[in-house]
């Protein structure tokens, strides 16, 4: 199952999806830094990152003990549910059915919420620490899932981990430089791309777990990526036309 047909998209999926999650975590950490202090923000974020790294190492090793077909089916199913959830939401956002995720609004809301707590005296602002820790942990769990699932199924956990790590470094560096939420990141486009990739991987590995023989074997993944991209694009067109038709009926 190794080879660039799997490792390449695995690194890509890991990088892109991790970038999206790190941007969302960065927004909260910035809000904490601005309102509660940077010490609490950094310590909370680093503590959560350390815990997440431990989870990747632990589960990565534990999953090696599971029989391959079972692993492919279980990991494939989880990836399928995860990827198709992202794809559905990205399609609906692109079609204007639901609103786009707005980092500046999240930053404003989080800042407002954190200001309602009074000053906390002590070595560290616990309110700020918990907010940063929770945000990085929760967003990071998605990264951990993707890294483990994609890395294990592609039998290249280091490649998937490297993709996630690279994304983290890029986002943190940009965050430190600009010191504000990264609102110009094309989040929905990234989620759309990741949704396509993970839906394709999930479908392929679910099929492998069910002993389905894919035409072209590993090359089928590239075919699935192209096919999901086409169907998702078509879905956006259909949803937009549907909304326009409904709006037309309302006006008449």
């Amino acid at each position: 199952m190794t080879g660039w047909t799997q490792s390449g998209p695995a690194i890509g999926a890991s990088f892109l999806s991790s970038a999206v999650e790190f941007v969302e975590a960065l927004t909260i950490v910035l809000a904490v830094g601005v309102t509660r202090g940077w010490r609490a923000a950094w310590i909370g974020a680093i503590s959560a990152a350390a815990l997440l790294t431990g989870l990747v190492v632990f589960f990565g090793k534990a999953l090696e003990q599971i029989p391959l077909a079972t692993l492919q089916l279980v990991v494939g199913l989880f990836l399928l549910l995860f990827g198709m959830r992202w794809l559905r939401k990205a399609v609906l956002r692109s079609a204007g059915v639901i609103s786009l995720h707005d980092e500046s609004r999240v930053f404003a809301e989080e800042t407002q919420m954190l200001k309602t707590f009074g000053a906390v005296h002590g070595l560290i602002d616990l309110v700020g620490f918990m907010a940063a820790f929770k945000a990085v942990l929760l967003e990071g769990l998605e990264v951990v899932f993707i890294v483990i699932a994609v890395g294990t199924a592609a039998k290249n956990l280091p490649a998937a981990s490297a993709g996630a790590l690279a994304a983290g470094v890029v986002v943190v560096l940009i965050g430190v430089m600009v010191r504000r939420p990264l609102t110009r990141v094309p989040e929905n486009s990234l989620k759309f791309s990741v949704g396509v990739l993970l839906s394709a991987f999930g479908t392929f590995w679910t099929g492998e777990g069910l002993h389905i023989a894919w035409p072209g074997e590993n090359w089928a993944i590239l075919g699935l990526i192209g096919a999901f991209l086409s169907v998702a694009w078509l879905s956006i067109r259909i949803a937009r036309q549907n909304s326009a038709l409904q709006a037309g009926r309302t006006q008449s």
Partner: protein
Amino acid sequence: MKVIFSIVKELWGLFVDDQSYALAILAWVTVSALATRLAIVTRWAGPVLFAGLCAVLVENVVRSARKNSRRNR
């Protein structure tokens, strides 16, 4: 305790936000598994699995768009 509850809720939310959508995906995978096991579909099992999943996606998107349009009237 609140943090643990948040984490569990977040983990569930990673895979399911529209329950009918998640159930339809799992149902189609089950149908594909049975069809493969009973050798009803052999060479085209992969494309059939993919086609069914696409149908689930498109149906959900169209239904969500209609629901949103009705809500905005």
